[in-house]
């Protein structure tokens, strides 16, 4: 999995994931969230447009990130999930935990 990030403002970062988010890539994702938090980020938008597959290990990475940013769903927003990711969120009822947006710009504009 490729993980890249860019800052949207001084404390808001965009994290773009590319590839399957599973037991193999979960640790990298978690580390990315921790690093950004250490750099002073208080909010991230996770762009899932490049993630064709997420399993429960990948889900755990997102939950870990959520907690890294204080447990408030506002601070780890998910953007543009593919249909497989949506299906997993629904199955696990995490669609009710995360704030999920159709696009990065929608996530950015939301309150």
């Amino acid at each position, binding site marked *: 999995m490729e993980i890249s990030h860019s800052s949207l403002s001084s404390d808001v970062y965009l994290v773009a994931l590319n*590839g*399957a988010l*599973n*037991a*193999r890539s979960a640790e990298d994702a978690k580390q990315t969230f921790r690093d950004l938090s250490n750099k002073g980020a208080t909010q991230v938008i996770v762009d899932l447009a490049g993630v064709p*597959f997420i*399993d*429960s*290990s990948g*889900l*755990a990475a997102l*939950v*870990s990130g*959520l*907690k890294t940013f204080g*447990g408030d769903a506002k601070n780890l927003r998910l953007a543009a999930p593919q*249909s*497989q990711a949506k*299906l*997993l969120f*629904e*199955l*696990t*009822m*995490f669609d*009710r*935990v995360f704030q999920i947006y159709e696009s990065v710009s929608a996530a950015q504009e939301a309150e």
Partner: protein
Amino acid sequence: MINIELLLQQRPDLFDNLAARWHTATEGELILLSNSGQIIKGYNGTHALDSIIQQGQSGEMYVKPAANAIITPMLVHGERKGYLLSCNSLESQLPMLSWAADILLDHLNSEQALQGMTDELIVAWDQLELVYRITQTLGEHSNLSNVLHSTLEEITKVVTVELAFILYGYNGRLNCVLAGEEGVDPAILTNQVLLDSLATFNQLTVFNNREPVLDVWPDAPSNLYNFIGAPIITDGSVVVGLGLINNHKQHLPHDFTAGHGKLITSVCEQIGAIFDYFTLQDDLIAQERLRRELEIAAQIQESLLPGKLPDTPGLKIDVTTLPAYEVGGDFYDFVENDANQITAIIGDVAGKGIPAAMVTSMIRTMLRVEASRNQEPHAIIQQAHQALYEDLSRADLFVTAFVATLDANTNALMYANAGHVPAIIYHSNAKTPRLLKATSLPIGVTHQITDQVTQYVHVSPGDTLVIYSDGVFEATNAEGEQFGIEGIQDLVSQYADSTTPAELKDIILDRLSSFSDSKSRADDLTLAIIKFTPQTVIDQAARKGDTLRTLPFTYKADTIHLDDICTTVTNACRDLRNLVDQTVEDDFIYLVELAMSEIFTNIIEHAYKNIEGNITGSLELMNTGIEINVYDQGEGFNPNAVPPPISNPLDPSEGGYGLHIVRQIMDVAHYEVDTPLGNHWRLIKYLPE
């Protein structure tokens, strides 16, 4: 004391007869004189009394010499009451005159005695009549204060008195009823000190001046002239005293007498009986009112319960509510959201009778409306709370509620518990019951309900949700022990797998009734059981369908291969698309990929514990779907040991979902340790029919 003048006014014939006979016998003329020589009776004007009698030094009267008259004193017990004078009489006739005086006195004495007896008779008659009229007033008035008022009016007619009052304390309130003098402020009589004094009198007490009254009634009016105070004996619950007062009108000469005392004493007995009658009637009315109220409350409650249970594929439901003797506020409801989803609501309004029943109808309607708009249990509770908080806190009532949304399609259970007793979710695979405890305070307790939000529980077909009211576990036996939540949990663990909800409900109710010692329940009892049931029963051992192609695989147990495994599955499913005459949806592929990813991750992390090993097996493409067999030589485990996590969205659990997801999405997910090829996962997902 004899009063000759007064008696002769009433019976002049007593003297007149004597004088006539005296005249016939002696030709003398009888004259009755007072002690001072004034004529009382008998003088016909023919004699000049001055020339006949004169007063001596010591004050006694005697006849002048040669007056041709005789005189004798009228003596009662040696006391002179007057004189009897006879003109035209001789000295020799004096003994006869003295005899005539004795006769007259005897007559007068008898008359006085007779009058005394008559007076007593009249008093007795007055008493009887008064008591009769008092009992009559009972029939004429339906309220105590009217009866008492009429009674007092009767008393003031019979005893000439300015003011009569009855003071009584009942249910902690002091009341005064009065009759008589206009313009008296009852406030000065409505006096606890006075009532306490009256009630502690042993008997009726008569005061004929103000001074001694002050001992019992320090605030007595300054112009009080005389006073009768009496306790009234009742059967206990009421403290009553009677008072009769004459105030400033000194021209009323009557001191109260013993006769008044007698009369009032018997009246007091009647008044006591009136109080007993009314308190008894009050008790009866209160009982009847309560009984009626309970009846209405029971009707309201019954009319609120849903007529039929929802018929939701994938859910089997049974519910019972048994109202207690004293109707409480248990309620339940099921709202069908869509074909496979319902919201179950069980609640308990703290309070009894009609107020609780009214609130029950309100809260139930509110929850129902909210449940049909929103499937999020905490939001449902919060909305109802916001709408009803003011009303509830005004009525000093609160409501506990367990709200659960159950989805048979996704095997999901969401709940919020506003101060209700914990519900039980029994996980069939793990054979474990778990308590779904309160997530917030009851509805109506504090202004804001902002505790935990909706909790999510992942369930599997076969799992059972048991929701109940406190009447269930609070059932007590003869030793005073409660049946307890543990008691219910034990029964659920023991029977949930092998019974339908209706059977489980009957078992719990049977055990409860044989456990409980009392015939009537102290509280309502509501018990709802919902079982997630597979919509199509799939035999985990068998499989339907013929193998069209077998794709064996071998991978190193390393997460580095997870992407490859997913690709393999995707490709196999694409092949399946070509092999069967049916579309294979993307979602089908996603779910099989997901199951494989979870199983592989599980084997790598838990069977091999990240140490080197192989994962082998095969994908079998069938005309009905796909079967996957996966083998490892790592450590076996019991996949049922751990129930799925209950997630709190505010603090979600990171792990523990994997195997649960596999069970949730595959039609067959069977695990066996130590088969000849190693630990064996057998997964099947059928194509939709």
